[in-house]
């Protein structure tokens, strides 16, 4: 709890100072997906949107991030972090590899997973049978 608080305090300070936004840790008992309202029960498919000056928005599924951005596009200067499906570590969306795995059961059923590198993706049995997914589509909420 304390470390979460510290992380948030750091975030607060950082966002005041205008530094690069840092991802917040998810409380797996209490945090709720900003789109589907469900308690986030695993970090491995989670994502977060850090808009400048705004509270961080957490998602339990990359699909929820996509759906959220569909209705409310990310403001200028936002940062999106996605969790590495193998480790749960936070990766900037720009640096991540997104894979769509048909039939893979993610919390909301999008079948989307993220990895830090293509090597990690290939190491992850979950991404077997998946195909690369365009990050731009994720950000634009699926609109062309």
């Amino acid at each position: 709890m304390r470390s979460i608080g510290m992380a948030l305090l750091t975030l607060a300070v950082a966002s005041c100072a205008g530094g690069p936004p840092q991802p917040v840790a998810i409380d797996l008992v209490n945090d709720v997906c900003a789109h589907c309202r469900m308690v986030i029960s695993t970090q491995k498919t989670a994502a977060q949107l850090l808009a400048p000056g705004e509270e961080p928005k957490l998602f339990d599924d990359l699909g929820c991030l996509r759906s959220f951005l569909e209705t409310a596009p990310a403001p200028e200067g936002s940062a999106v972090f996605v969790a590495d499906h193998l480790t749960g570590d936070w990766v900037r969306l720009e640096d991540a590899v997104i894979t769509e795995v048909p039939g893979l059961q993610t919390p909301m059923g999008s079948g989307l997973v993220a990895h830090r590198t293509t090597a990690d993706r290939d190491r992850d049995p979950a991404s077997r049978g998946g195909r690369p997914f365009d990050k731009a589509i994720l950000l634009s909420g699926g609109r062309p």
Partner: protein
Amino acid sequence: MSVPRIALATLLAATLLPVPADAQVGDDAQPPSTGALEGRPEPGRTSPLQSLVDAAAPGDRIVVPAGTYEGDLLIDKAISLVGDGRPVLRGSGTGSVVRIRAAGATIEGFDIDGRRGGDLGRDTSGVHVAAPRATIRDCRIRDALFGIYLRESDDAVLEGNTIVGIPDRPPGEVGSGIHIWNSQRYRVTGNQIVGTRDGMYIQSSSHGVIRGNRARDLRYGLHYMFSDDNLFEDNSFETGAAGAALMYSERITFRRNRFLRNRGFASVGLLLKECDDLVAEDNLMADNARGIFLEGSHRNSFRRNIVAMSDIAVVIYDSSRTNVFEDNAFVGNLSPLSLVGRRTDTRFAGNYWSDHGEPDLDGDGIAERPYRLSNVFDHLRGNLTAADLFAQGMAARALGAAERAFPVLDAVPVLDERPLARMPRLADVPDVTPAPEPAAEARTTSLWPAVMVMAGAFVLIAGGRSPLGRRAGAQGGAA
């Protein structure tokens, strides 16, 4: 995360090796759409009853005498397995205790012990069903990751079972009490579920009847998505950390259910996310953090419910359309409405609001002035979570009062045009059955008020008596 599970499960189904830790995915427990099922348990882990089952013919009724039977059991025939004197099925602790794989099987009257074993990735359950027309009746299941798991099992009947979760395990490491996935036309009646992750998890399963069940002391009492045309009657969802949540579903009916004491950070008595055409009648939603929550949900109808003692009675996102609240009683809620967004077309009519306090001069049972649900503060808190910290402050009340005096402050008010003046008699709404209090605590606490009265009175009375010198009569002695 499910694919490693599936892949490994496929592997493991054959070998039954212990599952590596990284495959134990603490996710929302979506079952695999395809893939491995636990089959026949390996020899050292098989229940002695297995031979009985193997020897039976479809349609047989096998009566099992009292006793403890260690090991797991595969039911692959349409038989009835009936316990006489509550025999105990004590699982191997590595997989599901009872695995029903044949249509029309029945299991009844057992105590089932999951021994805290197995793993979520393989959906380890007390009773795992992957076949149509299963009946599970009067079983007591404890220490299993999932209580009863229906996987693509249509027309199941779950009746009078008791499921007790694994104590002291975080929600991420246990499964649901009753997990229903891709199974149609089920009947779930009279079950008791305590201390699991979610009481009932229902996904992609329609046309079911859920009646007279009670789920308490867990995360979601009801966790529900992509399931239409289900009927919920006389159930109780209590003391959940998150309450009851329904998503992406249509035409659900709730009658005479209780949603009680769901008080976690994100708790809602009944949460609807993109649910349409739901009907909720004669339910009691009391002592929840938030009573009813509507987001992106349309044409839902709430009638004759009691929404009581919530911090916020109703939360409405302006993405919800044409919902109706009629003839409900809103009693003792700290705040009637939190509106997220600018405006709502939700219709409130003929409800009772205990904090209205407007008289009924002509005696028609309708208060003379409309009830105003929204105010500036509610707009603020709707769009800024931290404002909740001030919801009980004087400032919030002052804003509310100012708004009643100067309605111009709230340009788009939410009104109940004809609020009831008196609490309606809602005979079909169930009563609260209060959770039993530990007697010892009750006895000790009952002294406190008396102690306080005495302490206060003592200080005031003794303090008012003079410690400073004697009063009349004593001075003669001194002189």
